[in-house]
């Protein structure tokens, strides 16, 4: 069996959230090859009447085995943002509509050590913007059954964020968030693998958006998310169906349901094509107030007019075309289109008066294992 195939096999039997990554990386053992990857994301969004935000995002990822049981991986991304954030009920507030130029630099590194029946990982992450700095640390434990068909994952993360705007709207504010994950991955049969994760996030501190007029949010937030995914391979079609469902319970009230379906079709010559469709339906936060801006505002009580906390539905159709060149090189191009409309909320009840929001992103990637 080829080394990369063995690594992929092990990864398939484990397949963990946000842990396993590159082709050839093995979740139940250190990867047998190093892998480096570069991607460039071009993001644009718009609303009726004009373009809003543009983001240029180059990113780099690498994983390298340090021994048979130890590996290090990390990534660096840079976001160059320009334009204007979405209009909120046609009322300009703070950065919205006035044009902004900002950047974000983020990086993370993780060290993982494998043992016979378990693996432990420790990582750190850092994100820097002009007005926002985030530092985070992560610990992970994964353990698997003797037949390696079932894996349990547990992870813990703590983040400390600092928010400080030049305008003085937020001065040395702090936010602290603890994240917990418990997950199980099961190889159901030769062609089906299922994964279910529970994540719980608990934070306190500054959750306001300092760039939005009157924005004042509760200083505590908890989010419980249940994500279940299944990958079913169809050998006779040389294709794979990937489906996912996520329920999210948010103490802000922005509960949501997300479903996604992806079809991966392998083609001759190392080519593949992968169309996808995602749908999300969301409730409004309990302190969200519809237009006109400022309506329903009561002194001393939480308030937001942030459309991201409104009630809406959103679709994301997309497609990826990729090629495995067979000598360690892989390349792919991804195009996704995102549209958010109040009337698409499942069961109705979307926030009235919101402008539809649209975005598209094109991502070009190249990677090499060696």
């Amino acid at each position, binding site marked *: 069996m080829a080394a990369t195939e063995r690594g992929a096999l092990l990864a*398939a039997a484990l397949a963990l959230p*946000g842990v396993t990554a590159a082709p050839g990386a093995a979740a139940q053992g250190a990867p047998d090859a190093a892998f480096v990857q570069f*991607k460039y994301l071009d993001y644009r969004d718009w609303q009726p009447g004009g373009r809003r935000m543009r983001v240029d995002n180059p990113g780099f990822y690498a994983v390298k085995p340090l021994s048979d049981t130890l590996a290090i991986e990390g990534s660096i991304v840079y976001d160059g943002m320009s334009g204007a954030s979405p209009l909120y009920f046609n009322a300009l507030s703070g950065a919205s509509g006035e044009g902004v130029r900002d950047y974000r630099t983020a990086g993370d590194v993780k060290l993982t050590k494998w043992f016979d029946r378990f693996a432990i990982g420790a990582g750190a992450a850092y994100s820097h913007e002009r007005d926002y700095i985030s530092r985070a640390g992560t610990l992970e434990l994964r353990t698997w059954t003797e037949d390696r068909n079932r894996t349990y994952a547990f992870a813990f993360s703590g983040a400390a964020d600092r928010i400080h705007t030049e305008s003085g709207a937020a001065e040395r504010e702090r936010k602290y968030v603890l994240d917990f994950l418990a997950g199980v991955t099961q190889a159901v049969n030769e062609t089906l693998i299922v994964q279910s*994760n529970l*994540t719980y996030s608990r934070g306190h501190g500054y959750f306001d958006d300092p760039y939005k007029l009157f924005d004042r949010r509760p200083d505590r937030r908890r989010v419980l998310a249940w994500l279940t995914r299944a990958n079913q391979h169809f050998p006779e079609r040389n294709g794979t169906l990937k*489906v996912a*469902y996520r329920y999210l319970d948010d103490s802000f009230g922005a509960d949501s349901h997300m479903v996604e379906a992806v079809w991966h079709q392998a083609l001759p010559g190392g080519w593949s094509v992968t169309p996808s469709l995602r*749908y999300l339906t969301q409730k409004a936060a309990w302190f969200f107030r519809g237009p006109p801006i400022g309506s329903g505002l009561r002194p001393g009580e939480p308030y937001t007019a942030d459309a*991201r906390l409104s009630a809406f539905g959103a679709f994301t159709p997309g497609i990826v075309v990729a090629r495995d060149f067979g000598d360690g090189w892989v390349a792919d191009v991804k195009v996704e289109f995102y549209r958010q409309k109040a009337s698409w909320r499942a069961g109705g009840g979307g926030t009235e008066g919101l402008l539809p929001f649209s975005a598209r992103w094109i991502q070009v990637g190249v990677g090499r294992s060696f």
Partner: protein
Amino acid sequence: MVPPLRTLAALLAVALTAGCAAYAPPQPWEKQYLALPAMQFDADRLDVKNVQHVYYSKEGAAGGYGVGGGGCGCN
């Protein structure tokens, strides 16, 4: 329910039902299909980071895919 949502929900139900109906954990020599790159979850780390970051910045909340990574001023 929005029509495409019905389709997606049906696909999910079919996949999960099929899985329950055919529970037969594979032997080590029966894992060649599970080893395919397309069968991995979150195989493309940068893609997952980028796309989840977009959703995190445009929707109410995020979760389920992992922990860590820290916050940002985008939401």
